[in-house]
């Protein structure tokens, strides 16, 4: 038992009170609140959950095996589909891992572009979370799909910005080992500032919806309290851990891109419940807007690719060394562990492991669900924000 709440995730249901009125309920695999395909087997005593057994793997596509077959250049569009809500982050994680192992220096302009893309993507990802969470809670946030539609409207403007640069709304394939593929135009900076102004103004309205809504507070405050020690021990990072009082953010603590030059504010909350997780994400959205505004006009001139572009997909070769590098994605530490020296004399990885923050987040379900009702389980699952494409890979 790890939790201070005394929840045993491997509770033997046979030893439970024999006079209890037990029922088994499957939440998923196609329940809307799972935001993908995910099943949680709930053991209920009356209306209270006493044990939750999650089953992952419904979206398992064998990405890690695929990465052993394809070359490093070819896997970048593949990993886009892992965390399909923030594809920019997946690309950056893979590109950075290769660069770190090959010792390639990325030009400053590309680092600025990556930082801007990362923060815009974080904003878009959190907006999508806010919208779907509003839908999970049903009427608590303005009724049905209202907030969902609002948030998708805002997110669409950010995807429009990405489309302007890369030609794709999604799955951009804009990062390469050594830099970026697509450069921004002067118009991009102007458009971004206009978009951020609109989003910032509308975020104020959404905060109003939260803070003044009694139903919303009743459904989130004190629900699904995650202890900070348990979060660390489970490997949970990102907004989830910060809402439990863990003051840890790779952007500040182990800076990459140009975060070392910026003063990234890290927001923490001590409550660890669903409401705290909402607040942390909302504050992060404002911080992302601030960071983009700060650097959008100071992007230096220069090349965006730090190496000579190769002619064949196998031109990047990594020998039999091993390395791990990670970034702070909207869900926490997104890492890539590469063992080099695979097929075609090192043009593909011998073993490539994607350390996905969503899998760690989903692993706290057996600790958080017991003691709550089924409707609370939906609220908890919503604030954990696991992306199933990334959980299962």
């Amino acid at each position: 038992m790890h939790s201070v709440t005394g929840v045993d995730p491997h509770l033997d249901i046979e030893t439970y009170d024999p006079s209890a009125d037990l029922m088994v309920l499957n939440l998923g695999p196609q329940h809307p609140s799972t935001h993908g395909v995910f099943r949680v087997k709930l053991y209920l005593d009356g209306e209270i959950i006493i044990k939750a057994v999650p089953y992952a793997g419904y979206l398992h596509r064998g990405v890690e095996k695929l990465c052993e077959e394809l070359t490093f250049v070819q896997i970048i569009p593949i990993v886009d589909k892992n965390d399909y809500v923030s594809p920019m982050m997946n690309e950056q994680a893979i590109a950075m891992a290769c660069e770190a192992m090959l010792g390639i220096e990325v030009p400053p302009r590309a680092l600025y572009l990556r930082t801007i893309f990362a923060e815009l993507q974080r904003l878009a990802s959190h907006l999508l979370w806010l919208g779907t969470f509003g839908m999970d809670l049903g009427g608590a946030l303005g009724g049905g799909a209202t907030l969902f539609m609002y948030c998708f409207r805002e997110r669409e403007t950010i995807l429009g910005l990405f489309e302007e640069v890369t030609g794709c709304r999604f799955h951009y394939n804009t990062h390469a080992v050594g830099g970026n593929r697509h450069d921004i135009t002067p118009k991009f900076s102007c458009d971004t500032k206009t978009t951020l102004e609109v989003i910032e103004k509308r975020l104020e309205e959404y905060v109003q919806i939260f803070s003044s809504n009694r139903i919303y507070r009743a459904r989130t405050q004190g629900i699904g309290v995650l202890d900070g020690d348990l979060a660390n021990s489970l490997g949970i990072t990102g907004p989830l851990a910060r809402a439990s009082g863990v003051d840890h953010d790779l952007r500040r603590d182990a800076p990459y891109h140009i975060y070392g030059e910026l003063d990234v504010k890290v927001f923490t909350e001590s409550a660890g419940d669903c409401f705290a997780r909402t607040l942390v994400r909302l504050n992060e959205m404002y911080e992302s807007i601030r960071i983009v505004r700060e650097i959008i006009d100071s992007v230096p001139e220069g090349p965006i690719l730090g190496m000579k572009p190769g002619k064949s997909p196998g031109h990047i070769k990594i020998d039999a060394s091993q390395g791990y590098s990670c970034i702070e994605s909207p869900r926490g530490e997104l890492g890539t562990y590469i063992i080099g020296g695979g097929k075609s004399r090192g043009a593909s990885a011998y073993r490539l492991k994607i350390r996905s923050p969503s899998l760690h987040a989903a692993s706290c379900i057996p600790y958080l669900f017991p003691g709550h009702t089924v409707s609370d389980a939906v609220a908890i699952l919503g604030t954990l924000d696991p992306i199933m494409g990334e959980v299962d890979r």
Partner: protein
Amino acid sequence: MTRDEAQQRFVALLQERFGVEEIPDDNYPLIDAKHHFELARVLREEFGYRIYSFVVASHYLEKVDAKNDNAVIDIEHYEVATGIRCVGAPAHLASWRVRVELDQSIPTLFPLFAGADWQEREQYDLVGVRFDEHPDLRRLMMPEDWEGHPLRKDYAIETACPPWR
């Protein structure tokens, strides 16, 4: 403390208490399997490495020297790399590797890190390495009745049914 100082402290710990002689430049230190749990415990309780970061298992086939009458250089084995991290700056990552023979298993880190539960299940499922005294060593990604472990190097991907050729 900077990240370099934290790394030096970690290397000193490995050399003084866990008998590691050489730290490779482009790789993580290889330690003896019997020290695996103890190293994780010392790092967690004495050095404050609280965040469970990753566990990566990999499978290596038998290696032969084709020029020298197919003499066996290395037998088939697993390798398990583990990484744990300290909270806040400098967010240093302490990682090490353990060599596990085919018929051996490795102690689970579940008593120290609750996250080891799912992560080790995933590695068992995909690679096949077994973890001792794991509370619930079931498959995580593949269906329960799946045969074989997909990330092993002897698992062919061309066919969709056994014997995987």
